[in-house]
């Protein structure tokens, strides 16, 4: 057992490292776990002091999130027929009735449309541009690439006012198209640069082989280059989606009704029926899911994407 050889760690070493990893994970996951837990608390439990670790779970927060409610008097309550289902029951217990669905579902759907729409567009345009930059002689290529990168050199919010005015003029404020275009414009520099790196790594010979085998340049691109760039495309897509999904500032500024996404909507819940923290936490929890699912789905590619180039011969 020399100090230089790689040896199987002892039981104690495994224990210690396991403990360290779990501690670290708990610290970083704490806020997330707190939010998830709060979503299942009753409003009074959610603001209890000292904070409650053990509590009676309830779906009240989720019901409040998805519905609008009206208060009723106990007399009126007695005249109403019995609740039809569990969520009506939860609401009735607080002397309320459901007046209708809340706007959360719609806002969530907006987030899905705008987030995935702009991700798709960023990847679609980014892949084509990256391929051209990687393979063809483009006049003033280096300057163009620098220009594309330079759009990332200031925080996007620095141009908020011009964009706000432009969008008002063009009628793009509070539209799906406007938000998709905006997020695509911000993400495009990232996707072009990342994807160019991935495509540069794919040897030219594959396409040349395809050209000789009788395929056109475009067929060679989508039959040979794309499958091999899948890794890079997947990881780039995750980065693009995370940005578009979480973006808050522009969403607040440019959307208020039709095309409002979930991030600016969730805080507005606070103002409606007092400080309904469980509903906010429920909204946040549901909001986290799509990116988590998308990332888990592409995780295999993501890991390969990060080590791409490092392990390749």
């Amino acid at each position, binding site marked *: 057992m020399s100090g230089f050889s790689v040896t199987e760690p002892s039981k104690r070493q495994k224990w210690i490292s396991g403990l360290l990893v779990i501690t670290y994970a708990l610290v970083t996951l704490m806020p997330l776990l707190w939010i998830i837990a709060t979503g299942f608390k009753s409003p009074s439990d959610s603001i209890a002091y000292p904070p409650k670790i053990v509590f009676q779970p309830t779906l009240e927060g989720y019901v409040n999130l998805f519905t609008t409610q009206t208060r009723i008097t106990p007399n009126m309550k007695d005249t109403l027929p019995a609740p039809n289902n569990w969520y009506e029951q939860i609401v009735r217990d607080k002397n309320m009735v459901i007046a209708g669905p809340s706007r959360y579902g719609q806002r969530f759907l907006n987030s899905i449309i705008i987030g995935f729409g702009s991700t798709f567009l960023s990847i679609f345009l980014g892949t084509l541009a990256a391929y051209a930059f990687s393979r063809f002689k483009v006049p003033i290529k280096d300057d163009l690439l620098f220009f594309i990168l330079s759009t990332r050199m200031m925080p996007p919010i620095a141009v908020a006012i011009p964009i706000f005015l432009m969008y008002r003029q063009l009628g793009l404020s509070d539209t799906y198209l406007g938000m998709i275009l905006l997020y695509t414009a911000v993400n495009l520099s990232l996707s072009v640069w990342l994807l160019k790196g991935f495509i540069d790594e794919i*040897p030219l010979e*594959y396409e040349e*082989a*395809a*050209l*000789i*085998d009788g395929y056109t340049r475009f*067929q060679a691109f989508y039959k040979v280059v794309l*499958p091999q760039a899948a890794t890079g495309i997947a990881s780039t897509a995750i980065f693009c989606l995370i940005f578009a999904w979480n973006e808050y500032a522009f969403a607040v500024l440019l959307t208020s009704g039709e095309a409002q996404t979930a991030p600016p909507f969730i805080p507005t819940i606070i103002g409606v029926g007092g400080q309904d923290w469980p509903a906010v936490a429920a909204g946040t929890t549901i909001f986290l899911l799509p990116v988590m699912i998308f990332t888990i789905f592409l995780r295999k590619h993501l890991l390969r994407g990060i080590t791409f180039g490092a392990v390749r011969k």
Partner: protein
Amino acid sequence: MAQIIIKNLRKDFGNFTAVQSSSFTIEDGEFFMLLGPSGCGKTTTLRMIAGLELPTSGEVFINGEEVSQKRAAQRDIAFVFQMFALYPHLNVRQNISYPLKSQGMPKAEIKSKVAEVAAILGIEDILNKSVGGLSGGDRQRVALGRAIVREPAAFLMDEPLGALDAEFREHMSQELRTLHDQMGATTVYVTHDQLEAMKMGDKIVVMNHGSVEQFGIPQEIYDWPASLFVADFIGSPSMNFLKFHGTVSPGDTNVLLGGQLFDVPAQLQGASGNLVFGVRPEHVSLNPNSRFRAKVIATEYLGTTQIVTAETASGVLKARVPANQIVNVGEAVGLDFDPRTITLFDETTGGALLSKANRKVLDHG
């Protein structure tokens, strides 16, 4: 299957001329070698034949048809890359059938074609494997399979054995040559390995700095090099160059070298100034009676022969002599040259001087 004619082919990359005015003819069914050091333009020439690079000027004829500006897919050729370029996302069978799919061939026909090719190459058992896990040799066979399956007019190969280890190269080069003899298809093969070129090729083009130095059958190129470059590049050890200053006139049959008159083939071309006396190591013999003296500085034992390195008044020289001849380092020896095999060069132009012996080879080239 196809005759390929290259006429005044030229390729510029910006200010750099990769190939300048190459012309040669590849006959139908020939195994044709493009040989030269790296950067000499041989790969660019091959890529222009394939259509992966468009020539700046000049023409390429495949079977009489001018194709220099046509797309690779329209030239009916197959290309084997040094790195094999097997599609990594497809398995062996899919790789081999890929060119057939692009032609829209029915599935059943593709299947029987692939089976046929796999049988020729002896790779039936790996057809359903992914290409990632294959050995170098198997990858090479799959790459060949993908080339063969289309039955193209010509095969173009860019250092196809370059990525294999030395031991396996030997084996694959024989396999390739056998395959070529079976199929009889025109093959153009790029290599920087002169031994490989001599061993496998029917004909060789030797290129240097983008131009053709010499073109002919291996033996002619070896025996009668057209330039100092070819003489140096071909053969191991390469030809000995003994420099001398003097004048050669047409009709001369000997030259004065280090105070000794040596017979040479009757010269047809005159030259004067810095000249070079070229002799292959195997045409140097040790002769105690010779007045051309040298001091042995090293010997290398090679089994049946040995290479003796000796210093002469005209420069260092290597001789290939029988291994059983006793030669000691430090010993003074006399040297003799086989007069029928000598080539004289003009050092300034680098070209060989025409003689009665090399006229037949050099006149047409």
